């Protein structure tokens, strides 16, 4: 009986040991199935078509071209491989500009036929209309209905998820924004983080340490939304005045806040690494006549390099994944950043800001899940490299 009971307890404990692995698998599974769905979505909004005049020989357009056409950035068909004629765009809202209410019918029952005839008589027209509206025998041609392609997403330089007729899901600006703001955050945090770590592990008196330790812990404990709030109220206006910016919400504000948030992780890990540097190494160096500073530079830091690197990489991980603070202070402009003082937008902030408005199951929703997958893999790579770095160190010490 007792044996049986122990076996059960043992089984339960074993199962609970694998819970984290299960959660990771579930995360991968759910994010992937939703995210991969994006590539099965039609480029043009579901249920809609782009109709052309019969004479027009353009048969396929990329999402970016479609957007440029409807934004009137492209005004002639020859720019996108057609014949030399001006483009007229037509959306459903425009219907009353072309037809009177009598022509459309009292319940708009003739809309389809009217539009079809309009397209048939205007050679340069491209019309964005619901497919069900056009009569089946309409004398029009349709732009080929293709699905969203990998290259449009991973090499696309525009993120315009709500654009009609064709939303743009280019992740390059978001990825660039994330890396850009994290890079600066780490550059800001590095001198502080390393100095404090060295100070706490090598220089500070016991009393100073007992003051600094809780300070770092509290810095780690402050919620990101409070950092964001502080950044929004204090840092953003300061930067706006200090650098004379049109808007204070910028990559710089984001990276300052992120630097503060990445510090505790960096300091704790690096300090632990330096403290675990064997006493004998230190003593040998001091006995040879080196000063404490020389010992730190030439002995302690090199011997704990892998721990310090882990700390830095973990700090990067924290900065890359941080959501709320960044969302609140970076201004959220989805453009590829060229300087640090302009607004930019990161992957996590995009997910947080847009998921609430994206209709479930739609292309936009799936695109956000795809961003989640990308973010997950970035942090996975970061974590794996930390594992690798710290495992290498153990080998070296033996």
């Amino acid at each position, binding site marked *: 009986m007792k044996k049986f009971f122990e076996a059960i307890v043992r089984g339960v404990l074993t199962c609970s*040991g694998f819970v984290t692995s299960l959660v990771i698998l579930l995360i991968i599974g759910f*994010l992937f199935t939703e995210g991969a769905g994006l590539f099965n979505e039609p480029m043009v909004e579901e249920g809609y078509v782009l109709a052309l005049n019969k004479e027009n020989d353009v048969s396929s357009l990329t999402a970016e071209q479609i957007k440029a056409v409807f934004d009137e950035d492209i005004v002639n068909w020859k720019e996108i491989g057609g014949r030399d004629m001006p483009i007229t765009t037509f959306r459903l809202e425009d219907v009353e500009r072309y037809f009177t209410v009598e022509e459309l019918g009292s319940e708009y029952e003739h809309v389809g036929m009217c539009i079809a005839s309009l397209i048939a008589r205007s050679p340069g027209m491209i019309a964005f209309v619901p497919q069900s509206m056009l009569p089946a025998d309409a004398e029009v041609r349709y732009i080929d209905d293709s699905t969203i392609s990998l290259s449009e997403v991973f090499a696309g330089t525009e993120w315009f998820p709500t654009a009609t007729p064709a939303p743009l899901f280019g992740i390059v600006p978001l990825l660039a924004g994330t890396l850009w703001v994290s890079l600066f955050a780490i550059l800001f945090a590095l001198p502080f983080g390393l100095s404090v770590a060295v100070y706490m592990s090598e220089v500070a008196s016991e009393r100073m340490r007992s003051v600094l330790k*809780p*300070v770092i812990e509290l810095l780690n*404990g402050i919620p990101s939304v409070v950092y964001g709030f502080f950044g929004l109220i204090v840092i953003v206006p300061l930067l706006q005045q200090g650098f004379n910016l049109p808007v204070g919400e910028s990559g710089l504000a984001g990276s300052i806040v992120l630097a503060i948030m990445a510090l505790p992780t960096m300091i704790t890990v690096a300090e632990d690494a330096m403290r675990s540097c064997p006493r004998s190494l230190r003593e040998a160096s001091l006995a040879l006549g080196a000063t404490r*500073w020389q010992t730190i530079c030439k002995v302690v830091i090199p011997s704990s390099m892998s721990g310090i690197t882990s700390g830095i990489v973990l700090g990067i991980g924290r900065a890359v994944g941080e959501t709320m603070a960044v969302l609140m202070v970076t201004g959220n402009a989805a453009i590829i950043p060229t300087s640090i003082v302009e607004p930019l937008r990161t992957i996590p902030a995009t*997910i947080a800001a847009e998921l609430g408005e994206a209709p479930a199951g739609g292309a936009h929703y799936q695109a956000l899940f795809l961003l989640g997958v990308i973010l*997950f893999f970035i942090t996975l790579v*970061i974590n794996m490299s*930390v594992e690798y770095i710290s495992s290498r160190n153990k080998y070296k010490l033996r």
Partner: protein
Amino acid sequence: MKSVEYPSRYAVRKRYAQRVAFWLFRFFSLFIAFILFAILGFIIYKGAGVLSWDFLTKAPSDGMTSGGIFPAIVGTLCLMAGSAVVAFPIGIMSGIYMSEFASKGWVVKFIRLMTNNLSGVPSIVFGLFGMALFVKYLNFGDSILAGSLTLGMLSLPLVIRTTEEALKDIPDSMREGSLALGASKLQTIWRVILPMGMPRIITGLILSLGRVSGETAPILFTCAAYFFPQLPTSIFDQCMALPYHLYVLSTSGTDMAAQQPIAYGTALVLIVIILIINLLSGALRRYFENRLK
């Protein structure tokens, strides 16, 4: 006659370098402490005037430009409790397994790798995951249940790691002594190992609650309500939460000027909760340490 030895120029320079470096380090460290006190001081200074009994016990009113934050406080406490129910039992069991049962080898390595990876997953990814699994797939809707489960998953790695480390630090002689007296492995864990590890486990658990109380991204899409003035009555209700409330107040709304004092107050309450949690865990740690001596 003895010649007086002057320190060489090299020796002077290296002393000088050391002094400069150490002063720089001290300055940086004090600067970081200054940052913390600037943030805390600013929020306490601005928020203290807003705090009142009414603020803590009334629901928001007039489109969130007046009234209190009681529902948000209750919501956050509900979420903390909910996530504790989810994460603590599983996390502690997992920690026990890692420290006491798992044979040293690839199993432990694998689980530890997964736990570390999970702790590195950004909170917004947990939010996405919680939404896909709990809200949509399991159809819990936006609810305290979905929010607690999501937050529970998020705090799992922390709970596991503190438990494991607490138990790992117990000397093997304790285990051997107990086993030698004829106790079974489970008895040893239950009577010897867990009681000894408890202080550190508890402080770790409390700290994980602190982390949960401040998380916003995971509850954005799983639980948090923009405005839900009545108190939640079941775990299938939405609720307001302090961090989300702070986010909403400071980024959107009808009347920013009127909202700002409330935002300061909300931030202060959130900070106070975190401070209490940190102090409590510190005090507990000291108390247990003294008792052990």
